[in-house]
């Protein structure tokens, strides 16, 4: 008379980890998944390296050197030099700052906004739901880049306005997913059973339904990061993002793709940087999800 006859569908959940402190969860995750631990190390390393760049990088990221235009990768220039003879590796390290910020800040904002609105929409239903979802429809009806440009322009350009613009375009998709999940969860008997012991509605929403959405939230988050990084490059290209000469990974891919046949390392290096960063976040996301998932604790 014990374990295992669970065929529960859907909601593999989270919020678990008894005594669930963040530090405790982190330790548990690092124990359970070497890949997640390694990914976390990579992410920390990239962030630290880029912010400490002025302390140790020998080159100025923005100083051109015409004699070294299109220099191939070598011992002195690890990733070669670009069309103006600037050291590509230096620009990559400096560019990480903007790209990581763009990858994380607007994504977090849009996930938080989308989760909050989706949760309320799905849980409250009725008019609230109708209103929020029509708002989401409006946002989704426009090409996201165009909308982001409009918002970014309206707010006067610059990094902060890009954050706001990308968050504004991003929340709707998240809200839809979380709303759908909430609507299915709120029909579950455990919600009824929570009500029957006198749990108040707001607590049911935040403490019983939200934790069951965490796997979805993590997946949305990891999927949105590369999108935000690439969107930023498009915005920069169109002149409302990070403006030259400051470097960002997305902008570098965008700019050097014209040289893809002749000097492939120029676009490949920032491309690889994005790939590594995004992969690390995906593995970390998987690790976090598995740690929070009670079904994994058998």
């Amino acid at each position, binding site marked *: *008379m*014990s*374990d*295992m*006859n*669970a*065929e*529960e569908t859907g*909601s*593999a*959940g*989270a*919020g*678990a980890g*008894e005594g669930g402190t963040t530090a405790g969860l982190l330790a548990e995750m690092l124990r359970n998944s070497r890949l997640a631990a390694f990914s976390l190390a990579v992410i920390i390393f990239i962030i630290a390296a880029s912010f400490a760049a002025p302390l140790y990088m020998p080159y100025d990221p923005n100083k051109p050197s015409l004699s070294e235009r299109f220099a191939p990768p070598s011992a002195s220039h690890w990733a070669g030099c670009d069309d103006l003879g600037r050291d590509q590796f230096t620009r990559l390290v400096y560019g990480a700052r903007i790209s990581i910020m763009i990858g994380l800040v607007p994504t977090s904002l849009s996930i938080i906004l989308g989760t909050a609105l989706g949760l309320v929409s799905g849980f409250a239903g009725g008019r609230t739901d109708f209103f929020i979802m029509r708002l989401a429809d409006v946002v989704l009806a426009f090409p996201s880049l165009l909308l982001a440009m409009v918002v970014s322009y309206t707010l006067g350009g610059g990094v902060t306005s890009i954050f706001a613009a990308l968050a504004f375009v991003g929340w709707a998709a998240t809200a839809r997913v979380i709303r759908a999940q909430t609507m299915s969860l709120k029909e*579950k*008997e*455990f919600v*009824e*059973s*929570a*009500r*029957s*012991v*006198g*749990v*108040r509605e707001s607590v049911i929403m935040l403490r*019983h339904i939200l*934790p*069951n959405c965490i796997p979805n939230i993590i997946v949305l988050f990891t999927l949105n990061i590369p999108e935000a990084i690439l969107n930023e490059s498009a915005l920069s290209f169109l002149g409302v993002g990070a403006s030259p000469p400051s470097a960002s990974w997305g902008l570098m891919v965008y700019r050097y793709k014209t040289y893809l046949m002749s000097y492939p390392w120029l676009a490949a290096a920032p491309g690889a940087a994005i790939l590594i960063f995004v992969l690390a976040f995906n593995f970390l996301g998987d690790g976090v999800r598995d740690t*929070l998932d*009670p*079904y994994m*604790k*058998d």
Partner: protein
Amino acid sequence: MDTADNGTLSIKNLSTHFFTRRGIAAAVDDVTLFIPKKSVVGVVGESGCGKSVTALSVLRLVSRPGRIVSGSVSLGGEDLLAKSPAEMRQIRGSRISMIFQEPMTSLNPVYTAGRQVMEAMMIHGGTGKAEARDRTVEMFRAVGIPEPERRFRAFPHQLSGGLRQRVMIAMAMVCRPSLMIADEPTTALDVTIEAQILHLMKELQETFGTSIMMITHNMGVVAEICDYVYVMYAGKIVEQAGVFELFDDTRHPYTLGLLGSIPRHGSPKGRLLGIPGTVPSLLDLPKGCRFSPRCDRAERYCSEREPEMYEVAPGHKVRCFHCSGGSKGGSP
């Protein structure tokens, strides 16, 4: 049965209707029901006859488009329908609790079993975390969960169906409510586990003096545990009697049908009797007696006028024209 004291729960002329686009469905229609102190009262009927809605009406958890339209529900003399939502929340879980049919889905998959029972206790205040924890473990032991300390930390999916239902019972009992509503608590369980759970509920009922409202479609469960029984059909009570009286002197053709459809060992006839047809749609109820289209004793007047409740013996009432005379063959 309507004794002078307030008993645990008294429902009078309760009607709960669902206002759907296609019309009004009277899921509970003028139901009067009494649960004396320290007793187990069964509410029996097929799916869709209004048993669960009656239970949810007591907790005031009927969800839209359903609404209690009239009647009264009183718990130990207090009118529950007059309570504010906040007062109602305090009553749920502490004075009335409920256990559900599906032990698989009625526990939140992301929290440990112990934590959920603790939450139920801490909502109603008066206990710190440590005390709540101790009392939960104690309650786990009381409901017969082996290794309660370990099960406290188990997630729902790590427990078997029987154990989960015991956790649910622990959650329902932890605040020592005066009434526990059990909505088909054993339907999803194996028969062997079913007997254990029923036994446990009876035992807890005797230990803690809690009354139980047992909702079921299974006459076997009724025979096992109930003191008094209400039989519901299409939103109305059609027969009510003490459990022995009901089995020995069944009057209503519907109750006879329910009893006839239990498989019995060594029954003289080889065939299992069903009731022909299905429960009518609440949006399109037959005229007159609601059971008349399915009834083998229906006369013409049955589909013209609706029968009242007739008292055929002390504490035994039946809603059928054929029973009004006090003998089985009577007519109106």
